[in-house]
């Protein structure tokens, strides 16, 4: 475990609360905010999280895709500006940018998420597929629709606020590369 812990790379200006669980080869880029009790587990291969992502409480990002050959593990790359809300479980193979994974959503390991998608609260997404840009998955039956108009806007303001507030209340993990 301690060897694994050493592999965690936190870039400067990222805010990572101390009591979250980060295991394996995880890279957290600058500008990210990781809330307490979040889990990032790089089980079978590294996880690279892009800039300005928010990972909330009980969110779990898990790379458990079995690599084709042991010396070439699958790297879960997550683009910038994603939000992983409370209790979401993400095992996707690849994630683009500006996606929102709402509370208690689930994305299985054979799904590839492009850009600007929203997985609404409680939606489960499994089965091999590639989500097109701006897809919204919503409702009890996980219907799909295409958002013509992005209303979620930017979450930069929220990030600014969290960057100001969180250091006052939490012990943070130090940046190390």
């Amino acid at each position: 475990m301690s060897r694994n812990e050493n592999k965690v790379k936190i870039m400067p200006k990222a805010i990572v609360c101390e009591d979250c669980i980060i295991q394996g080869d995880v890279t957290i880029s600058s500008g990210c905010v990781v809330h307490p009790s979040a889990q990032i587990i790089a089980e079978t291969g590294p996880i690279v999280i892009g800039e300005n992502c928010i990972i909330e409480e009980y969110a779990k990002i898990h790379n458990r895709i079995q690599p084709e050959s042991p010396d070439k593990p699958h790297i879960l790359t997550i683009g910038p500006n994603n939000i992983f809300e409370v209790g979401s479980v993400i095992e996707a193979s690849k994630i683009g940018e500006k996606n929102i994974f709402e509370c208690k959503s689930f994305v299985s390991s054979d799904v590839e998420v492009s850009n600007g998608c929203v997985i609404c609260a409680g939606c489960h997404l499994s089965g091999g597929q590639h989500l097109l840009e701006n897809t919204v998955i919503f409702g009890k039956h996980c219907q799909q629709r295409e958002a013509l108009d992005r209303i979620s806007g930017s979450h930069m303001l929220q990030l600014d606020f969290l960057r100001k507030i969180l250091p006052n209340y939490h012990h943070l993990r130090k940046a190390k590369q």
Partner: protein
Amino acid sequence: MDFLISQNYVNYVCQCGLLKPLTNLYFCRHCLNLRCSFCCHHEVDSHFCRNCLENIPSSEAKLRKNKCNSCFDCPSCSFSVLSARATTIQVPMTVKEKQEGEESSTTTSEASSGKMVAKKMYYLACLACRYSSRDVGISDQASQNFCWPEQEYMHANRFNTILNYYQALVLHDKQVKQDEKRRKTTNKSKFQSMTDRTGLNVSAIRRQMGFDKTVSKPKNKPASILPSMTEEVEELSEDIFTKPINLKNITTIEQRFTQPANQPESVKHLYPQHKNLSIKRSIRCRHCEHNVIKPEYNPTSIKYRIQQFASSHVPEVRIIKCYPLMPNKSAFITLKLTNPTMNDMTITIMELPTDDEEVMMIDEMKKNFESLTVSSKSSLMRPSLIEDPRIVSCKPTAKLELPDSSFVINQRDDSAEFDDEIQTDKKDPKFVIWRKANKIAIELSITPNDLKVNDEVIVGFTMHYTYSTVPSTTAEKKDSQQRHALNARVYLNVGNIVDYSTK
């Protein structure tokens, strides 16, 4: 409390013969019977919008077709409400600027007080599925209230003509019927006016005049409307079977049914829908016409003006624990009984009536009721509205060993809540385990019938209890504190037969 764990273990028999948990039953103070929502009148007290919680007078509600003016349902996901969002945009807008405008978007309710009113434009957005009124081409509005363009639907004219036609037809029929009646009665009245010359003459003249009036009116049937056109139906295009469809652009059945007038096929026609209103209702006993429930008008209020919950009049039975159940072997169950009233209760646990007795009970109830309706003619109620009592559908599958004596439960005393000690009265019969303020725990023995593993074990008993009416008005005070002996039939689902082979 059963409902909180989503299964009913203890059910009471309503007067109409349905089994309901105590929490869903009412107690009519005047008939001294249990009532449920099935055997009572439901009356609409007031209309309100459950989103903005605004009270809407019933006349206005009718005018607005029972929909709220200011709240909209999302047509795409149907379970969420659209909220107005504001954008601050500069006037001639290019696509690029539009996006920038959205990035600074905020919701309105508080933001509307800002000073940039002139520049603020509003649109409706669903926060669940990200539907927005821009998706279907509704332009942004300068004010967030009430001015959203109403959706036009194609059959509106047709519906109006049909409606007008039938209204005219009803009117016409009524007139014809009235005229016939008059024609019949005039002869009679003429005859009467010959015998009696006082008041009837005038009325006869009046009637005559009225008759004349109707004669002058044209009695033509309203011009019948044309049946809807059976236009040539277009042939299906060939590519309908071959063209791949994009499911994202096609509406679901549910989405279509939320817009019954239009039933759009494409998501491009999903317009915001006005929210349906909700009601507050009062519930009235059908036998004595007294209210058992009457809520306050205020939509946010949870208070009642009249509340006759069974749970505050009838002793509540709860299962504390039950030993493993095996067929033909006796087991103990522990029950807790609570007295919710301000008077001591004497309780006797008795056998359930047999089938024949139950039929007799029902007959007697019907008879009683018939005599009641004959005697009180002023009553508005119609016997047909009264639900016939039925035989309880649930049959017990275990035998209960009845306790040999009755027992008393103390009255409710709110201050006793802070007493912690459990009193055991020596005079109590053996089956009483403990008592605590207005609660008592008893232990009874049950013997399940010859059942299979995992079969449900149901026991039932009639609970005979004393009930004292509390005088509510001064007129009643004369015979205050009347004591009644009432019965409640209780069915307990005590669990399933365990598989003793594994034990």
